């Protein structure tokens, strides 16, 4: 790795000042599981890494029944999946936090970093999109919010301007009769990159027999994570049935625009999107009914 400087600001203001001073030559360090590999491999370069783990706002993990969940950008996956409030209220988030990398990686890697790294295959982003997540960003021009589905712009690229910092991700409070699930397909049991992944969330009516609404997002089937609005919207007002779920799966497959590469073919990935959409919807329904 080329020589770099390191700083560990203790406040958000200090962090923003360093970011402003160094512009795109500053890189934010959270878990480091992507950044350090990229710096070492020469895929990214920086003059200074800004360790975000001492800034209080980036280390917050808090749940409020009205406001929802705030996930500080430097909170590691292990803290998220060991959190009781997350497990009870956002099982779709626990799903993805507990399958990123190994136990070693989960001790360091963060959901905020997964979002900023903007890999098409990122396991947490479909869940964040499906759950209606919003990125809270601050920078020299002040604070702004970006919907999770608008955050990634290309492989490894996101909407952050030089000097801007992802502070946290907000998830709205779960509604009554709601449920979510994330699944990916990998040829191994662990430690692999998604050939395809799908995150689904649903809200059912009080009878548990009809969809009120749904959100579905896809991984590894386009240059960025895909929010399949058509698939989610197709559920609204329809009975929970195989036909309704098949229709959503068809729409999700239509929104998948994968490439053929070493991990899978176009045909296989589109097929997987259908399978995973059906499976995640079925699990999300069970969770919404309190059956799982």
């Amino acid at each position, binding site marked *: *790795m*080329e*020589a*770099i*400087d*390191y700083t*560990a600001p203790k406040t958000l203001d200090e962090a923003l000042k360093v970011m402003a001073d160094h512009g795109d030559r500053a890189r934010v*360090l959270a*878990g*480091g*599981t992507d950044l*350090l*590999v990229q*710096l*070492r*491999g020469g895929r990214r370069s920086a003059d200074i*890494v800004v*360790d975000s*783990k001492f800034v209080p706002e980036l280390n917050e993990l808090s749940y409020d029944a009205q406001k929802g969940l705030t996930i500080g950008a430097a909170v590691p996956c*292990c803290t998220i999946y060991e959190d009781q409030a997350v497990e009870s209220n956002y099982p779709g988030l626990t799903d993805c936090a507990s399958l990123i*990398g*190994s*136990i*070693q*990686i989960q*001790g*360091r890697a963060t959901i905020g970093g997964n979002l900023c790294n903007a890999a098409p295959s990122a396991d947490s982003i479909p869940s964040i999109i499906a759950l209606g997540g919003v990125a809270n960003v601050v920078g020299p021009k002040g604070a702004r919010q970006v919907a999770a589905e608008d955050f990634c712009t290309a492989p490894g690229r996101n909407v952050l301007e030089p000097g801007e910092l992802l502070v946290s991700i907000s998830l709205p409070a779960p509604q009554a009769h709601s449920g979510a699930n994330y699944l990916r397909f990998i040829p191994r*049991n*662990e*430690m692999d990159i998604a050939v395809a992944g799908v995150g689904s969330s649903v809200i059912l009516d009080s009878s548990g027999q009809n969809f009120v609404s749904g959100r579905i997002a896809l991984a590894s089937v386009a240059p960025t994570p895909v929010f399949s609005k058509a698939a989610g919207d197709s559920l609204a007002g329809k009975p929970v049935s195989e036909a309704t779920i098949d229709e959503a799966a068809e729409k999700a497959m239509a929104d998948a625009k994968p490439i053929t590469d070493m991990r899978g073919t176009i045909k296989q990935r589109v097929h997987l999107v259908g399978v995973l959409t059906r499976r995640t919807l079925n699990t999300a329904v069970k969770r919404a009914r309190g059956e799982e």
Partner: protein
Amino acid sequence: MPGLVHVETTINGNQVNFLCEPRQSLLECLRDVLGMTGTKEGCNDGNCGACTVLLDGRIVTSCLVLGVEAQGKEVTTIEGVASPEGLHPVQQAFLENASLQCGICTPGFIVATKALLDREPDADEGRIRHWLAGNLCRCTGYDKIVRAVLDAEEKMKS
């Protein structure tokens, strides 16, 4: 050119001071700065787990931690696993079950295994394989390692 940074940390219960460049990983600091070569370098990109150490009680790949990040933390390496009285039951079980051939992955496996059994003394085979999925071994085929972990569970209970 960034200068050397003074890091004060605790390694295996001892207070340790060292100087490092900010770009150096904790793995490099352990091996090259402090001469603690028990922790091994495998892939150097977080895939193989050979460099596994405990950082404030959690297993991490030390190749993906900067040495400067150890400031004020507690690090436990393979050198901190055995006691002056003898090998740790996990180490003894690895020996008795012939769970190593070339041995490069072994320190990482032992640190990761000890962390698992300290948290979950009754982990079953499925949980053991899941927990150790971040540690690669190209010699044993894993079965002997899993057998050693199950054996270590028994040893630690008696």
